């Protein structure tokens, strides 16, 4: 469903993403992990057609993203990490705009918008401007907007940001169901235990390169670690966390004296 070959992105001589390649099959939920600045968001932006790669190719549902971006964009849904909303619109207006951009028939659109907002508990706020929404409520609108046109592939960049426990559980369950129905899900996150529980496969990126690709169990076995967190620590060389935390604490407490 997703085929990435030698994907590279260079900014002013700095390699943000360095010749990565992977294939994701239909119905897979792939967790895409990496420390800050590893190139996760850059990869997602290239996969969704927001950023043009410096090198490499991306094919989604058999279509070349660079050659046929509009057709590819019709097939994908994307929940961005930040931004992504016109805050002067109401949730109802925003979702209607999104649906119309995908040419959804009005009656289908009306039905879906109301249903999605109801499922996320936003029905009573749907005619209020998004600027008055909390972070979690905005996130629910973004998720609804990504699912509105029933995409074949879903890209999620930190989708649980701001969501309450109930909504987070709902989303995780929803992702499993969608994958079972044949949707492909690319899940980008920092929250390792969520990835461990939700994803069928994990790709770890560090300094723009893929350092691990496999199921959680395979990665644990390969690195001889007990949890995904330990695997991640080992592969991204951040095992000096305790020392760093100690230095921070010393610095903060030193100010008191």
């Amino acid at each position, binding site marked *: 469903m997703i085929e990435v070959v030698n994907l590279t992105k260079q900014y002013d001589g700095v390699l943000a993403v360095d010749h990565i390649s992977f294939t994701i099959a239909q119905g897979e939920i792939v967790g895409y992990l990496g420390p800050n600045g590893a190139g996760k968001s850059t990869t997602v932006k290239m996969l969704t057609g927001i950023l043009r790669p410096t090198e490499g190719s991306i094919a989604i549902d058999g279509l070349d993203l660079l050659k046929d971006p509009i057709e590819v964009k019709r097939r994908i849904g994307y929940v961005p990490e930040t931004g992504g909303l016109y805050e002067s619109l109401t949730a109802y207006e925003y979702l209607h*705009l999104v649906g119309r951009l995908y040419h959804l028939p009005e009656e289908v659109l009306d039905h879906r918008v109301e249903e999605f907002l109801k499922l996320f508990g936003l029905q009573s706020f749907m005619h209020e401007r998004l600027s008055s929404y909390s972070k979690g409520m905005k996130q629910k609108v973004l998720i609804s907007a990504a699912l509105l046109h029933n995409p074949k592939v879903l890209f999620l960049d930190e989708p649980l940001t701001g969501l309450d426990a109930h909504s987070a559980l709902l989303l995780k369950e929803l992702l499993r169901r969608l994958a079972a129905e044949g949707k492909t899900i690319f899940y980008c996150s920092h929250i390792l235990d969520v990835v461990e529980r939700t994803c069928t496969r994990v790709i770890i990126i560090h300094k723009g390169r893929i350092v691990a690709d496999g199921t959680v169990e395979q990665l644990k076995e390969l690195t001889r670690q007990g949890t995904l967190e330990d695997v991640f620590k080992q592969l991204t060389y951040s095992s000096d966390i305790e020392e760093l935390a100690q230095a921070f604490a010393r610095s903060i407490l030193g100010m008191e004296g």
Partner: protein
Amino acid sequence: MRHRLLALLEHGARRLGIDPHQYWHLLRVSLLLDFRRQNALSSGQSTPSALLTTCLVYGIFSLLLALFTFRVLDLFHYSLIFLSYSMLMIAFIVLSEFGATIVSPDDYEILGHRPITSRTYFAVKLSNLLFYILMIGSALNVFPAFLGAFSESAERLFPLIYFPVALLACLFSAMLVVLLYGALLRVINYEKFKDALVYVQIAFSFLVLFGYQVILRAMPYWEQEATAGSRRAILIMPPGWFAGLVQVGLGHWERDFVLWAGWSMLMTGFLVGAGLRSFSLEYSFHLARLRAATAERRRARSPFRRRMARALERLLARSPEERAAFYFVRRMLRRDRTLKLRLYPALGFPIAFVVLGILEKGLTDPFLPSKRFPSVAFFMVLVGPLLVLNFHALLPYSSEHAAAWLFRVTPVRDLVRFFAGVKKAFLVALILPLFLLIGAALSWFWTPWHAFLHAALGFALSYIFLGIAFLFYRGGFPFSQEPMKMTQTRQMTLTFLCLPLFGAFFFLFYMLYKYAEGPFLALGLFLLLGWILNRAADQRAARATRAQQELEGGVLEWFDDLS
């Protein structure tokens, strides 16, 4: 009939690569967003009201200018003047207010992954821009068009011909700026692009402010050329092309007019075509480039400069709040592009005025006996108060307004000292260098002592204005509100409306310089008055900001109660 027309339009749009369904919904939302963006705490400063005020003020300006000229000039020169004025104003407004409309990376974040063609997206952006151009272009030209019918060489058809041509000229002007944006985007990244735009806008500000001086001096030459039967020199100026089109529309089929008219149509067609074709095809690619822009790398200051800056802060700002405000506003004055654009061109004014003074042969030393007071020297000094009014108008706004939450959570206890710090930063960063420059520039013509005394008086006058302006401050922390379309243009326009008040100061200076002790006494008095006013203004700004914070807190509590 209506359905057939709509079908035809849809067919045309599809042939151009525009999705009519998406176009319509995106355009509707883009205008809806413009008209809804209103800060609940900014006393109703919304885009519609700002647009209305701007249109009203421009309409009045045009009416006044038309009343002064319609019985004096022939129709050709009358059209030329108003077309030049409209085209310059439109280009200036597009440059200063519509940067984000034409090139908006934030928009791309929201729409970039949706199946929208570049052409559809660009057509929406262009239509949004044209809506404002049409409104402002109409305001600029409706009165001149009407009064033109009663001009010296009156022609009743004039309004019907002139008005659409004027709108076409405005479109030409706007498209020229759009293409300039496009050309810049092709060669540089977004950070550099934004910097380059600031410099282009600064250059343009000079053109607007001093261009009329050139036009006034060139008018006799053009008229002379016209009577000699040749107006070819005007061919180099776009307003001349459109003035020719007006003449052809009125039935004056002279060879030169026909040539200009044809040229104007050709160039407008070319600009619109170039905008819609080549640029729009690659629009999303350019926007993607914007996203790729990396943070600007700045060199760290040397330890010596850091120590000097610290020492200056400690010397001028007494409390931590004052120091924080002083530091923050100085940084923003150096980094914020809008502030740079609106304030820094003033530092070039002394040089421009010196050039004007040389042209006028009017830069004689007014302190010497039997010398008249040079008006140019007075106008130089007035740049200070004008800068103060602009700073006051711009202070609440910034594109980085979201970061203002910081002020709401940090314990800023002494708001009076905070605002003292804000004003001191402005005085040190802009007013002081401006008047040092004025002193240095005038020293070329006058005794240095006289030049710097004149500059010091200007500084003191600006200090008074700073106090007065902040007595009317609406409250709010610096750079804490979202800039909205047209509000800044409206405030700048209102500032220019204050210009007649300066006549009183001109008279005051004229009287002061007649007596040897006058300037010294005035300097002392001005500084004392300035100090008193600024103390009062700090109290007032602090009170207004506190009241706004309370209102905001109340609103938040209300929301909490609701939820």
